[in-house]
């Protein structure tokens, strides 16, 4: 391994270790403040700059909490397995931090290689991501078991069942993106979405994103799937017996996992570092990436402030009877319609090329939008540099807007397939919902005068 590579990796990793834990502190503040406002309270508002009366909307609260956590007594129950009780929070944090390295988050301060650094370039990043996420389950079960507390044990059991179940829809919805891009490399997936070709903007991508987001909520034990730490039933679940700094580590691990899984959602569906003015400055992609992560976390907080919790059997039923069939159906639908659409594009390309070959497009009256259509065809065929079907479709859309007949047919097909896919997905979801959930509906009541 060369010296430069080590330096580059360090340069890319150290920011992860600095940025995300400090973002964690900010997120706890944000969550408390947002939840407070949702509940019509004020939230933390006293602690700001120390020794002054500047409160900065309570932004000093996380720091105060952290100091308190460090100095609190560490209580280990008498019957607990002390070694595993200690290891569990560490083990919960490490995989979460590791996952962050696979995000296609480029920092602009690399010197030796290309000017931009990413912590880890791995051709099988997505696979690796899911593999390491699975480790979290182990830590949680370890915590539940080692605490020697019945509530902890119940929480640990719930966590294992829940995480194993929800990993399947999570992976299956990611498969769609992998199918489309044809690569497991996070960087390539990110690049494939540049120029607003985000996968969330297609019906199957949207469905996959929703499934992915729901499963991600369950993976990170967020409301309404926070059963392993269900306060009203099993007190605090697996971390009932944790206090002080160990508790803080668990907390940190949970939030880092939230960042990581939101980061993956952003990578897979929301165009990674893509966004308006992305070329304006070298740090824009990273900013966009983190902003999108925060957007997703805001939705998580919003959901947490609104929804009650599912029951264990309903949770399982939701994963196996609703999300799993839906995501399998989605994969089929995506494959079919993607290839149908692709065939149609190929067909149109043939038409355009044929038209160009048969006559002289630049003499006489050219058909409207022929230039754009030709451009699309050339891109599709790979004649204008890189071969990129998405970019080709964009040119065909432009052609269709100008009135190119073959492109218009293509766009009509395109729209038709999209609408049909959306309808099919909705009908499927509705049907699955009716099947898996017993008929629960609002009722009518009687009145006595």
């Amino acid at each position, binding site marked *: 391994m060369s010296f430069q590579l080590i330096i580059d990796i360090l340069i890319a990793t150290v920011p992860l270790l600095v940025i995300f834990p400090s973002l964690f502190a900010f997120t706890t503040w944000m969550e408390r403040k947002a939840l407070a406002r949702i*509940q019509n309270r004020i939230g933390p508002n006293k602690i700001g700059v120390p020794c002054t009366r500047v409160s900065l909307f309570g932004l000093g609260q996380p720091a105060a909490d952290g100091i308190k956590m460090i100095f609190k007594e560490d209580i280990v129950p008498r019957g607990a397995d002390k070694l595993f009780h200690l290891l569990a929070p560490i083990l919960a944090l490490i995989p979460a931090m590791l996952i962050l390295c696979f995000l296609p988050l480029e920092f602009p301060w690399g010197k030796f290689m290309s000017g931009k650094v990413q912590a880890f370039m791995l051709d099988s990043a997505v696979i690796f991501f899911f593999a390491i996420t699975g480790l979290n389950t182990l830590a949680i079960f370890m915590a539940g078991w080692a605490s020697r507390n019945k509530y902890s044990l119940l929480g640990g059991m719930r966590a294992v069942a829940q995480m194993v179940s929800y990993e399947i829809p999570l992976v299956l919805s990611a498969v769609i993106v992998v199918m489309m891009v044809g690569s497991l490399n996070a960087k390539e997936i990110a690049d494939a979405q540049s120029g607003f070709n985000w996968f969330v903007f297609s019906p199957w991508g949207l469905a996959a994103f929703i499934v992915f987001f729901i499963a991600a909520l369950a993976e990170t034990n967020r409301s309404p799937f926070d059963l392993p730490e269900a306060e009203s039933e099993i007190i605090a679940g697996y971390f009932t017996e944790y206090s002080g700094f160990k508790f803080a580590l668990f907390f940190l691990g949970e939030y880092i996992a939230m960042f990581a899984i939101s980061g993956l959602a952003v990578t897979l569906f929301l165009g990674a570092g893509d966004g308006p003015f992305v070329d304006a400055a070298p740090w824009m992609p990273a900013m966009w990436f983190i902003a999108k992560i925060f957007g997703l976390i805001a939705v998580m907080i919003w959901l947490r402030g609104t929804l009650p919790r*599912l029951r264990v059997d309903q949770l399982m039923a939701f994963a196996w009877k609703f999300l799993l069939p839906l995501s399998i159906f989605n994969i089929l639908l995506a494959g079919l319609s993607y290839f149908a659409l692709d065939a149609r594009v190929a067909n149109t390309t043939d038409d355009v090329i044929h038209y160009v070959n048969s006559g002289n497009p630049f003499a006489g009256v050219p058909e409207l939008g022929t230039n754009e259509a030709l451009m699309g065809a050339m891109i599709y065929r790979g004649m204008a540099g890189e071969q990129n079907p998405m970019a080709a479709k964009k040119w065909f859309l432009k052609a269709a807007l100008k009135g190119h007949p073959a492109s218009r047919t293509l766009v009509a097909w395109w729209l038709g397939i999209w609408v049909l896919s959306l309808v099919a997905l909705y009908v499927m979801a509705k049907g699955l919902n009716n099947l898996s959930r017993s008929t629960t509906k609002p009722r009518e009541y009687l009145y*006595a005068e």
Partner: protein
Amino acid sequence: MSTTAAPNYELLQQEGLETSLLEISMGPHHPSTHGVFRMDVKLDGETVVELKPVFGYLHRNHEKLAENMSYLSSMPFTDRLDYFNSMTNNWAYALAAEQLVEVEVPERAEYLRVIMAELTRLVNHVTLVGFFVNDLGALGTPLMYAFREREKILDLFEQASGARMMCNYFRFGGLRNDVPEGWLDRTRELVDRFPAFLDEYEQLLSENEIILSRTQGVGNLSRELAINAGITGPMLRASGVNYDLRKVDAYGIYDRFKFRVPYTDGDTGDCYDRFMIRMLEMRESVAILKQALADIPEGDIIGKVSKVFKPKPGETYGRIEGPKGELGFYLIADGTPKPYRYRVRPPSLINLTVLREMCLGGKIADAVVILGSIDIVLGEVDR
């Protein structure tokens, strides 16, 4: 009808594999047992196979205390029975004591009593629904909205009686003092705004898919068992019995108001019914409040009662429709200024009779929800 036997549960015994039931003592310090209530639960995985309620952690022998002091001195202690609804507790006690001496309550006092009782009902139901959804796992958002509205009502209570929760406002033969100037206007304003809040509350809760699937079909209670087990209040009406003491006894001046009693057809009697009955009852309370605030006359606030309350020997049982159910006071007077026997019929305790039956076979999460839908306050359960 006797207590149903525990389900015949056979342990799964396999060679080299031995499983046992998980015994959990939920409470007395558990976040959602609504105080120091305890349930000894046996779990098969997550399923409840045995549940034993344990009472008494807040027992202070309220009845014995009351038997050792004058009639008036127990009035502030009744506040502490069901500390959410001190006004209705006061009323039930005052009603029973007034039956002993047959005193005339002035018109204005009767109206104010109705207003206070219905405001109390709003407070109780609105917070109950909040706590109930909290037990379902919401992060306290509905509870905070409920507290927000409760706060406004408690402000009114404070202005009238001097205290927010321990009101100690009713006296034998009337009320302690008249409400301050402008109080009725403020109450009118609150009552006018309340339906808007209820709309928002219903929009938040009553169609939510998660709440529907968590509560429907959970904790079913049949009509026959409900009557036989002495279940009262909204819980009884949710099981399909049209029985409201405000209509049946028409105590106070409830016969003057036009209001409806919501109840179900008795098919299910589950947690969702109990939850919705309370939501609907609040609207009826608002209707009563509007009428009472429109009709309230001027006049005296307390009838002619001698300063030393010394009823003739006799016994009486006074009961009212408290927000949680039938709250009764059984008094035996022996001619001295102290009651010879003073008994509280606590609706919270008696509604817990069927807790075990409703919980068996459900999940542990259901047990919490069912307990939440019963609506107990430990001050009243343990007395």
